[in-house]
């Protein structure tokens, strides 16, 4: 009995921040409509969604910069709703990096530590540690105006991370960087988070950042949680077509059709095409979702093959990216290596159903095939 109680309390301690049914209105506009999420200690929780989803609003509510209309916020099991921002022990980095232009990088980094009345020696050590980690050590004596955009961003990140707090809140912290620097920063960021085991809530519209950094991901859309789960679940078991298409490039391809039973077996039918499935599924209107990697060029037509017409063709990294017309739908896929297709060219493709998703007419997931 005793051990069980302890286990329960340990588990609860893992939940650093809990949002329960949070609603937020701006005038008549409902920005959040019952958002419930959990951020665990030592993890990075990513809030992913398109613009207008309510991502930043959620973050501001956690920071205490916005009030809620209803709902509860627990931080370390303590109700947070009525605590002032400064009492919350969270640090926030917004997309716009506000640095003091008239003081050095060192002082920019140290400013929040001065405010904590920390010893001089400790401050110097902490600044050096953070600056080394972010690769801005050589610039400590410069003023922000003499740094590149990427370096400034790293200083801003450093300023947020230098303050020892329980939870870091980050709103699109690297969205301003050019693409190359972003790759580098994601690696640095990931290294930092895992080494220091800090707890972060990270807001982004970029699925790649979400998958790279998140242990858990919450997909937000129009003020509602579409799915909350581990990043593996979000990728492999998207709860609906919105989540399915939010993650991945090219996004998951969707094919509308219906499942019928023929001779005791389930068949997915669309137009003149019929695929016999290994699984037995209920009949009805369905959507088949299949990722680009499961579409291959077929030498001959046969089982699970489809004829397609090339719609456009280009290059993406070392891959060839091809849009093609399959029945009435446009499929988008990438093939490895250099290949050239003409617009209008007829090709045969083969679908590998392992991992394919079946959605119902409400676009909700009912089955992942081959699992």
């Amino acid at each position, binding site marked *: 009995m005793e051990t069980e109680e302890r286990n329960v309390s340990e588990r609860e301690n893992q939940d650093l921040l809990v949002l329960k049914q949070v609603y937020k209105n701006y005038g008549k506009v409902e920005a959040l409509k019952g958002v419930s999420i959990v951020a665990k200690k030592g993890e990075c929780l990513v809030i992913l969604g398109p*613009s207008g989803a309510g991502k930043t609003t959620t973050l501001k509510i956690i920071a205490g910069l916005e009030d809620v209309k209803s709902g509860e916020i627990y931080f370390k099991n303590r109700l947070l709703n009525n605590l002032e921002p400064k009492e919350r022990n969270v640090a926030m980095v917004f997309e716009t990096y506000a640095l003091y232009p008239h003081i050095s990088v060192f002082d920019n980094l140290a400013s929040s530590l001065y405010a904590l009345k920390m010893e001089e020696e400790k401050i110097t050590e902490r600044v050096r540690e953070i600056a080394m980690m972010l690769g801005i050590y050589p610039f400590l004596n410069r003023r922000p105006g003499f740094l590149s955009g990427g370096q400034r961003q790293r200083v801003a990140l450093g300023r947020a991370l230098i303050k020892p707090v329980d939870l870091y809140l980050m709103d699109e912290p690297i969205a301003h960087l050019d*693409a*190359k620097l972003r*790759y580098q920063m*994601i*690696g*640095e960021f*990931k*290294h930092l988070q*895992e*080494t220091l085991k800090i707890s972060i809530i990270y807001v982004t*519209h970029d699925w*790649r950042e979400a*998958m*790279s*950094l998140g242990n858990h991901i919450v997909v937000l859309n129009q003020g509602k949680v579409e799915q909350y789960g581990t*990043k593996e679940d979000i*990728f*492999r078991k998207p709860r609906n077509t919105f989540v399915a298409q939010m*993650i*991945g490039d090219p996004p998951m391809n969707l094919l509308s059709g219906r499942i019928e039973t023929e001779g005791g077996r389930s068949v997915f039918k669309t137009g003149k095409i019929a695929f016999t499935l290994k699984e037995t599924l209920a009949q009805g209107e369905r959507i088949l979702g299949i*990722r680009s*990697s499961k579409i291959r060029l077929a030498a001959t037509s046969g089982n699970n093959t489809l004829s397609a017409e090339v*719609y*456009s*063709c*280009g*290059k*993406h*990294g*070392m891959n060839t*990216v091809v*849009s093609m017309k399959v029945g009435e739908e446009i499929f988008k896929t990438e093939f490895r290596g*250099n290949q050239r297709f003409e*617009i209008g060219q007829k090709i045969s493709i083969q679908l590998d159903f392992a991992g394919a998703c079946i959605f119902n007419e409400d676009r909700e997931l009912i089955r992942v095939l081959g699992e």
Partner: protein
Amino acid sequence: MEKLVLENVYKNYGEVEAVKDLSFSVNDKEFLTIVGPSGCGKSSTLRMIAGLEVISSGNIYLDRQKINSIRARDRDIALAFESYALYPHLTAYKNLAFPLQTKKTSKKEIAEQVESTMALLHLEKYQNMKPGALSGGQQQRISLGRALIRQASIYLLDEPLSHLDAQERVDLRVQLQRIQKLNELTFILVTHDQLEALAMSDRILVMHEGRLQQLGTPEDLYDNPANLFVADFIGEPPMNFAHGTLARSTGGRLAVRCEEKVFDLPQRLISGKDLSRHLNEKVVMGVRPEYIHLCQKTRSGAIPGSVYSYEDLGEIGYLMAVCNSEKFLIEVESGYQYKIHEEVFFCFDEMHICLFSEENGERIL
């Protein structure tokens, strides 16, 4: 057939040389993209072709006719610029119809053309709205439509997708390529976005500091960059670079020495090439993340590294490994959770190692 030819074109703004000795030609029915960072001279080049800027020296030929001194409006060229320059008092529909009306096309024809162009650019919903009521992305599509609806010898598009959101941009890349190919038009598009250039173009011209760096197919640029600038500019995630010295390893083979680590250059790669004049020179070795593979410790030439970070993207992952002080980004299959500081071994795809001179960035291998 050559549609447009630039011959030793220069553009000076006072003391500043914005475009330096630029020569290239665009083929009929070709989709050529000029790409480079801001300030590289790409927009100046387009404006000279359009006739909006006077060229400082050199020649420009369109359909074999020299057009240096022909006024912009007399050149048979359609333009779409990053700034939309729409008629604020006209609806989206009328903005598109406007260039046709001046050419005395019948009403029915105008309607057909406007409607089909609107459909291609997904603008049907906005046809009765005025520009002021539309978002930047929507205005930009109208401006693009207004250029494409004209009959012209060549179409010049300056950052035509820059104000669109990510999904719209990807959709419109596809539509732009289809419009160009299906109507057999000649396009010159300017962008700073190399992904966009790779996705749409027949050929790409890379500019930097006013000069042409490389002109080639997307495949050329990706696999055979002419210099360090192109290698670094094209590709996302970017190419890995290791700085070192070209030296002979103990076995007498050519190698790149980076601090204590020596990377042997594969025999297959260097056979038939004389690199002796570069011996002891500072070099930069470049390998793309897709051309680095994890391997067994026992494999000859296996490079030891330690995991710095690992990102799993669902189907592939990016592993950052540290070897000496260099970091290498490696594309791997997802599925295994690499731990920070874990030991890994990797090797380079032999035929995809690039070597550049550190001094001038020229490709030497």
